[in-house]
């Protein structure tokens, strides 16, 4: 009987430990607000976003510093920070959500899966529910993940002045790609 309990406890402890977490500090996020009538590409790239995924619960989280977005044109970067996302007031964009069908993914074997991701995206002080498909590729114990997402800028109270209304798209395309490594605490 004593042995049974020891075994039971061991199994339980092992099970909680089994839920592997994956992370990265170098996720790439592209922010594209180019509209068909834009005179130039309006695209910022952040290569220092952080992400943690808990494969057991399917929970996942992203965070990116707004000032980490680099633009080809310095003036565009200034306007992005100063006038649109107000990065001094709202320094971070965050996503907190879950992989809806994480039970379908075998994280121990190489392979490619399409998963549904649902959660809250917080940006410019506003939170909105978002949903998208992501592609997960298991490779040598690491997860390669890519996802695309369209957000309506007005949902996040990012206003575009009338003067440039036709030059900036009302929806931004956000593309995420990252390579998640197993997290060892």
């Amino acid at each position: 009987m004593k042995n049974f309990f020891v075994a039971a406890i061991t199994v339980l402890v092992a099970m909680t430990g089994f839920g592997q977490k994956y992370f990265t500090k170098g996720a790439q996020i592209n922010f594209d607000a180019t509209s068909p009538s834009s005179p130039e590409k309006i695209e910022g790239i952040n290569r220092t976003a952080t992400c943690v995924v808990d494969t057991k619960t399917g929970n996942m989280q992203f965070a990116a510093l707004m000032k980490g977005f680099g633009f080809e044109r310095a003036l565009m970067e200034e306007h992005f920070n100063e006038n649109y996302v107000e990065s001094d007031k709202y320094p971070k964009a965050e996503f907190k959500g879950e992989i809806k069908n994480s039970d379908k993914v075998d994280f121990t074997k190489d392979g490619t899966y399409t998963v549904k991701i649902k959660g809250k995206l917080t940006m410019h002080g506003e939170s909105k529910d978002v949903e998208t498909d992501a592609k997960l590729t298991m490779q040598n114990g690491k997860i390669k993940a890519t996802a695309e997402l369209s957000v309506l800028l007005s949902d996040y109270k990012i206003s575009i002045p009338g003067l440039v209304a036709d030059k900036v798209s009302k929806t931004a395309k956000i593309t995420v790609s990252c390579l998640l490594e197993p997290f060892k605490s």
Partner: protein
Amino acid sequence: MRKLLYQSAIGIVVLLSSNNLWAQDEDLLKLLGEEKPKKERIKYAFKSSRVINGHSMEFLNPGTMDFRILHRFGQLNQGYKNFFGLDQASMRMGFDFGILQNLMAGVGRSTYKKEVDAYIKYAPIRQSTGPWSSPITFALVSGITMNGMPWTDPARKNFFTSRLSYYFQAIIGRKFSENFSLQVSPTMVHNNLVPLETNPNNIYAIGVGGRIKLSKRIAFTWDYSYVIIGMPDSGYYHPLSVGFDIETGGHVFQLHFSNSTGMNERAFITETTGQWGKAEVRFGFNLSRVFQIKKKK
């Protein structure tokens, strides 16, 4: 003993499962640890590299060129016959280049005295936050101007160097908040040639410039220089300009009223002839268009 074991086992099971329940709402990013504070430059204290007339604590981004067209119209008190001064205009056209994040240089030419000017501006210290940060920006400007007018007395022996003047300026500035920036700039202007023997060659002044942001794209600015030493006896005044910066995407418009005509340091510090009290004030605007010459990676 058996009972104790049994109870503790249940206890552990409960503990572990409740642990799992909490895990639903845990902050996963906390696992990665707190990010170390990084030194970060405070940017955008002013919309432009000039407050109005004088240099601001702000620099152009590396790889950009600022094409500036400056206009100063006639005096407001001329009334309707000169359409409040708008019938006359004096202008300066300038090209400024951002070389490093704390180094820039520029050239310009003014219609007033057909003057060509050039300067170089460098900031050894930039305002920043985080470890080893500085609460202020400290910048140095060194400039030269060349008078292009015909010699007033062609009969005497004239030297090329007599056309030249120099100015040296330190800028101590701070962006106090998103909406308020202030800077102080001690300046020295040296004229190689002065009109009268009694006029000093060196003129010392202290400038105070600031910005109050009214909205995301509009700001109230002022630019004052107090001439401490070397003010000619009469007919010259301390230059004061007040105005608005309006940003319209690609351009920055600086609309203002000023008692000076000159648009370089030598001209507006040492040769301001208007008096605010008598409405000898001119409307003027600076138009700044920044071009990216070298693409950022």
